[in-house]
């Protein structure tokens, strides 16, 4: 094989490798953006849920003990670190952070206790104001559940893409941090009238 032929082959191989890397890298980049975007959406929705919980706690419709505990759990979420509002934050830290996850789970647990039983929720919903507060909490909560599912789905896709041989061999992910799923307890109270299967029966409607 002549020198020119060898060069040609090497150049051709380099081009193929480059092209394949480019395809892989753009896919990875798209997936990372998707993770960051769903992370921001999830963050915003969890904050909305916490603020719906605060509204309910300060409405005077719950008993005083529940009011204080719900408000405390919700404020803890507001104060927690790890809120990602800009794309840079979101790309930097794909998980929600153990602390935040614990606090969100605690808010869920407190709300479940405070809204225990369909009858209690039914009574709350009896008044016009109560109906509005409870409906708002149910709506934001359901959306937070959705946002978390969608985010974790995106994370799983990104993780799969990063495991691919090419991506690892050529270190295409660079130093972009590995995305992590968000694991927290967001089971809705039985009586909240969660729309859809997995939620409660909506007998109070």
């Amino acid at each position: 094989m002549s020198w020119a032929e060898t060069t040609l082959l090497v150049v051709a191989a380099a081009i193929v490798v480059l092209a394949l890397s480019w395809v892989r890298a753009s896919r990875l980049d798209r997936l990372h953006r998707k993770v960051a975007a769903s992370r921001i959406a999830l963050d915003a929705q969890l904050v909305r849920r916490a603020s719906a919980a605060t509204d309910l706690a300060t409405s005077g419709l719950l008993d005083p003990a529940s009011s204080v505990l719900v408000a405390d759990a919700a404020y803890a979420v507001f104060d927690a670190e790890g809120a990602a509002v800009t794309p840079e934050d979101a790309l930097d830290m794909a998980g929600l952070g153990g602390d935040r996850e614990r606090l969100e789970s605690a808010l869920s647990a407190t709300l479940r206790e405070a809204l225990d039983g369909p009858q209690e929720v039914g009574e709350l919903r009896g008044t016009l104001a109560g109906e509005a507060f409870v409906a708002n909490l149910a709506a934001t909560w359901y959306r937070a559940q959705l946002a978390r599912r969608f985010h974790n789905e995106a994370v799983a896709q990104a993780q799969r893409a990063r495991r691919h041989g090419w991506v690892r061999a050529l270190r295409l992910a660079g130093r972009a941090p590995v995305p992590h799923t968000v694991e927290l307890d967001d089971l809705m109270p039985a009586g909240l009238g969660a729309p859809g299967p997995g939620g409660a029966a909506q007998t109070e409607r």
Partner: protein
Amino acid sequence: MSTTRPLRIGIVCPYSFDAPGGVQFHVRDQAQALQARGHEVSVLAPADEDQPVPDVVVPAGKAVAVRYNGSVARLTFGPRASRRVRRWIEAGGFDVLHLHEPMVPSLSMLALWLAEGPVVATFHSAQVRSRALQVAHPLLRQSLEKIAARIAVSEDARRTLVDHVGGDAIIIPNGVYLDDFERALPHPRWQGTPDAPTIGFLGRLDEPRKGLQVLTAAVPAVLERFPGARFLIAGRGDDGAAEAVAALGAQASALEFLGGISDEDKGAMLSSVDLYVAPQTGGESFGIVLVEAMAAGAGVVASDLGAFRRVLDEGAAGALFRNEDSADLARVVVASLEDREGTATRRQYAAGWCRRYDWSTVTDQVEAVYEMAVAAGEATPGRSETWLPVRALRNRGEGSES
């Protein structure tokens, strides 16, 4: 409870509206429900220019009958269809695209391939794995990753998705307009008495999957305990009717064939009968008619298919019998007719339970999904403005290099 701002929604249906089918009905009703909430909806579906379609539908060209995955389906594909999909997406300026059955090689798959903004996808079928799909998977994977939110209409559809495509989906059931059924008035001719109860059946008579033969075989045992019982059989299929009559001989007089009935009569029948029996033997992924029966206030007895068990909340909203077992069906029917109190309790529970399948509930959920998909879309950082995408990431990791 919805606070959604009005959205521009583009819905893509892979199947032609000139053939009736679950997906088409779902798309039509969903578009209507979303429009009623003030959203701007456009539906892209296979249709000829001169074919009459609902106003909301934009025709995307003729559907062609092709052999796919072992059966013949009417699908739209090819470069002309692609161009139309592209034009529709560009002209629509949609906030969100909702694609039905994006794994079916038709319009939805094309739309997913061309889509750029937030995409929501609904998976309907519990479909078997196709070899062609596997071969094409590397091509489809990139497309599938564009989907921001995946919806399955039932647990069975979700299973299929998890097993064959990977990833998960949230479950939002098919919607049913329950109000018409809740408001339906009973028809005295179809109402029974404690001694002469009426039992209803709905479905094609000559389709074994619908299970008329299972019910027919259970008739003698029911008549033994309730000699005056009447069985109202609604649905088309003369062969099935003849078979049922032949199987019962002299007792066939207990059967009353109503033929194909209108939606209005269906509501009337379901609210008149003492029991509605659903002896389907398989192939049901959801069970809309069970929901309709619950809304109309009929006591429900159904075979214990997975889909039916879930729709009936594992038996709390209706009694279940062993699939294809006529003796067990007769036992459950007799027990339900004797235990009027228990049946009434289940009916009462069912009236509340079935609300989750009403379009108002389903639309709440779909709107929530749209909101989350749009929120994630709006948050998308720096949509590929760098010429070499990988650079954006490298920078993030290393700080100042550029």
